[in-house]
C-alpha cells in the first residue's frame, strides 16, 4: 500500500463511474484539480496531468463506516487513529465514526475535542461518537450539547447496552433537541449472562454458555417502542437476528427516524463456523444461525438495513489466543469488508452493485448528516476505486490494523479495493 500526494491535475481514465445518488453506472473519466472534483465525463488530460488507468475498475464515492473502534486513547497497542486510518484506506473507506468506548471513554466535550484534533492529523476523516452516559455506566447523561458543538455526530455506549429503560428514554428525549441519532448496543444482559455465542445446536455441541436471538430482539423492540414514544432518531447497530430484523422492518413503515446497520461478519459467517472454537469469531452480538443470516440478507435486499458497518474491533493476539471464555468480543473488519459483502450480497445473492455501494457510501453519510453528493464539482475529493470481480484470498499481509483478529484470513473474497482518494492523497493497493 502506497500513499502519495495528488498532483495538481489527476485524471481517472476509462473506468466505470458508479453514482450512488443518481443510481447510474457508466463509463467515464474523472478530473480532479487541486484535490477537488472538477468534472466527470470524457476528459482529455493536459500534458502535465497524472493519468491513472481505471479500465476494468469502478470509480465511486469513498466508503463511510459509521461504526469502528480505534482504541485511542487508552489501548494504543490495539489500534490508534493513525493505524485505524490505514486499515480504513485499505478497505476503501475515506470517513469513519469512532465509538467512544476508549479508556477513558469519549464522554466529555474535552475528549471529543481531543479526537477531532487528532483526527485532523490522520489521512482520513474521523468523527467521534460521544458516550450516552458518563463513564458508559448507564447512570448519568453526558453533556450532549457541548459535545456536539465540539464535533460529536451521534451518541452511543456501544460495547454495553443502556440497560435501564428509563435512562434510554431520557437519552432519546434529550437527543430530540439536537436531532442526532442514538445508537444502542442491544443485548439484554440478564438473558445474555455469561453467554459467549449464539444459543443453538452448535453451542450445545461445544458446551459453551450461549444466548438466544431474543437477547437482542427484546431490547431492539424496546428501543423501537421508545423511539415512537419520544420521536427521537434511533440507529440500530450490528443487527444479528431474524427477529430484530422483522421488528425494524415493521416499525420503519410508520417511522422514518429509524435506521439500521448490518455487519459484514453477520452476513458472511454462521455459528457453524465456530465449531473449532475460533476466538476471532467471538463477537457481540454473536454470529447466529443460517436462518438468521438469510433473514439479514433479505433485510439488506428489502431496504430494512440502511447501511453496512464493520464494527471493526481490534484486540491483541495475546488476548485472542487464550481460551474461548477469556477472549474479548470483537473482530477487525475494515480491510476485508468490501470483498466479503460483495461476495455474499452481489455475487451470491444478486444484489445490484449500486445498492451495495449506497449502503457503503451515501446511506451512512445521510444517517450522520455528512455531505453526500461527492461528485459535485468543487467538493474535496473522496473516492474509492475497486475491481468488482477480482477473486482473492484474504491474508494476514492484507491487514493494516495494529491487531490481527480477523476470521477472514484464508477466506475467499470477491472484489478488491485498488485505490482510495481522500484529503488530497491517493492510496494505491498493489
Amino acid at each position: 500500500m502506497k500513499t502519495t500526494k495528488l498532483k495538481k491535475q489527476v485524471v481517472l481514465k476509462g473506468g466505470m463511474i458508479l453514482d450512488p445518488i443518481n443510481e447510474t453506472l457508466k463509463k467515464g473519466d474523472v478530473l480532479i484539480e487541486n484535490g477537488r472534483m472538477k468534472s466527470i465525463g470524457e476528459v482529455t488530460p493536459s500534458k502535465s496531468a497524472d493519468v491513472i488507468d481505471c479500465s476494468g475498475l469502478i470509480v465511486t464515492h469513498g466508503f463511510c463506516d459509521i461504526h469502528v473502534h480505534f482504541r485511542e486513547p487508552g489501548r494504543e497497542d490495539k489500534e490508534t487513529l493513525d493505524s485505524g486510518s490505514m486499515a480504513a484506506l485499505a478497505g476503501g473507506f475515506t470517513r469513519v465514526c469512532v465509538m467512544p468506548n476508549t479508556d477513558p471513554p469519549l464522554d466529555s466535550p474535552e475528549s471529543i475535542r481531543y479526537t477531532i484534533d487528532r483526527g485532523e492529523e490522520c489521512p482520513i476523516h474521523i468523527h467521534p461518537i460521544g458516550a450516552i452516559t458518563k463513564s458508559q455506566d448507564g447512570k448519568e447523561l453526558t453533556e450532549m450539547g457541548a459535545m456536539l458543538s465540539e464535533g460529536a455526530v451521534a451518541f452511543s455506549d456501544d460495547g454495553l447496552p443502556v440497560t435501564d429503560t428509563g435512562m434510554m428514554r431520557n437519552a432519546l428525549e434529550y437527543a430530540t433537541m439536537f436531532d442526532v441519532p442514538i445508537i444502542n448496543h442491544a443485548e439484554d444482559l440478564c438473558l445474555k449472562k455469561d453467554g459467549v455465542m449464539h444459543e443453538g445446536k452448535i453451542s450445545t455441541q461445544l458446551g459453551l454458555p450461549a444466548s438466544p436471538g431474543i437477547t437482542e430482539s427484546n431490547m431492539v423492540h424496546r428501543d423501537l417502542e421508545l423511539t415512537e414514544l419520544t420521536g427521537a432518531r434511533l440507529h440500530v447497530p450490528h443487527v444479528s437476528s431474524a427477529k430484530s430484523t422483522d421488528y425494524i422492518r415493521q416499525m420503519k413503515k410508520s417511522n422514518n427516524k429509524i435506521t439500521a446497520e448490518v455487519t459484514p461478519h453477520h452476513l458472511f459467517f454462521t455459528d457453524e463456523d465456530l465449531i473449532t472454537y475460533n476466538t476471532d469469531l467471538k463477537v457481540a452480538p454473536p454470529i447466529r444461525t443460517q436462518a438468521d443470516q438469510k433473514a439479514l440478507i433479505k433485510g439488506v435486499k428489502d431496504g430494512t438495513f440502511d447501511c453496512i458497518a464493520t464494527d471493526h474491533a481490534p484486540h491483541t493476539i495475546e488476548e485472542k489466543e487464550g481460551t474461548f471464555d477469556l477472549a474479548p468480543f470483537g473482530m477487525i473488519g475494515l480491510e476485508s469488508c468490501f470483498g466479503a459483502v460483495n461476495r455474499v450480497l452481489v455475487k451470491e445473492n444478486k444484489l445490484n452493485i449500486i445498492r451495495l455501494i449506497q449502503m457503503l457510501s451515501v446511506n451512512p453519510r445521510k444517517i450522520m448528516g455528512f455531505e453526500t453528493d461527492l461528485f459535485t464539482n468543487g467538493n474535496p475529493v473522496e473516492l474509492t476505486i475497486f475491481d468488482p470481480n477480482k477473486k482473492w484470498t484474504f491474508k494476514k499481509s492484507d491487514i493494516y490494523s495494529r491487531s490481527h483478529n480477523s476470521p477472514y484470513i484464508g477466506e475467499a473474497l470477491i472484489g478488491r479495493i485498488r485505490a482510495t482518494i481522500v484529503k488530497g492523497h491517493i492510496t494505491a493497493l498493489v
Partner: protein
Amino acid sequence: MLQQKHLLGLEGYPAEDIQTIIDTAFTFREVLDRPIKKVPSLQGKTIVNLFFENSTRTRISFELAQKRLSADTVNFSASTSSLKKGETFKDTAQNIEAMKIDAVVMRHPTPGASLHLTQHINSIVINAGDGTHEHPTQAILDMTSLQEKFGYLKGLKVGIIGDISHSRVALSNIHGLKTMGAEVTLCGPSTLIPPFAEDLGVSVNYNVDEVIEWADALNVLRIQRERMGGGLLPSVREYRNLFGITTERLSMHKKEIVIMHPGPMNRGVEIDSSVADSDQAIILDQVLNGVASRMAILYLLLGGKQEEGNS
C-alpha cells in the same frame, strides 16, 4: 490402532475405534485381576497429567492406568486463577512439552481447551474433561460397563438423568452412545436441559417414571448443590420429588434396571444410598472399568508406532 492422534471428544469419533477401545479395555480388565497388575506396554513413555481443575477420581484413575502400563507420570495441578494472573495457557503447555513428553492428559474448566492445547503442542492430547464440553474417557468407561453388563450396545436404551446443561459426561455419553447405536433419553429439570438437546439426536422426557419404564439402564448425574436456589432449581426437596432415583420410585416399576453414576455421588439428592449400594447398581464396576478403559486408550494412542503421527 486408532484413526485420530488425540482423544478430544466423542462427537464424530469413529464407531470402530470406540469398539476397539472397549475390546482392549476388556483385555486390560484381566490384567487388573492378576496378582501382579502391571504390564510393560508403555515403558519409557512420559505422560503429564495437567489438571487445571480439581479432580480426585479421574486423576487417580488415569495415574493408576499409567502406572500399570509402566509409563512415567508427572502430575501438574494449577488453579486457573494463576493463569488469569500471568502465565498464559500457551506458555504452560509449551513449557511442559519442552521437557520432552509423549502425552498430556488434561482437565480444564473451559470448553474447547483440549482442542486449543493441540494447536500449541505436538504431543498426544487426551481430554480428561474440558468445562461443560466433553469427557470422552468417562463415556467410554460407561459404555465399557454397559457392554460388560448387557453384552451389546446397539439398541440399548439409556436414560441420562439430571443436570444435562452443565454436564460434560452427558454430552460425551450422548455422542458415544448414538454412534454405537444405542437410544438415549435425557431427563431432568427443563432449566437444566439444553434447549437444543434434541438436535443431538436424543429424546427429552421430563417424566422420570416414564424414562424408568422405557430404559434398560440409567446414568444418574450429580446435581451440584450450587445449582439449587439460583433460579434454575428451587430446592433439593423439589428435585428429589421430581427426579430423585429413590428406592420407592424404583420399586414401583417392578423391573430390572441397571443404575450407573459417574460420581461423585450426592447420596440423598439425586440417588438414594440404598439404590447406589444395591445389586442393580454397577457404580463400582464403572470405577474399575475406568482404569481398564484408560489403560486401553493410553495403550492404543501411545503404544504403537505412533511417532509418525496421523492426525
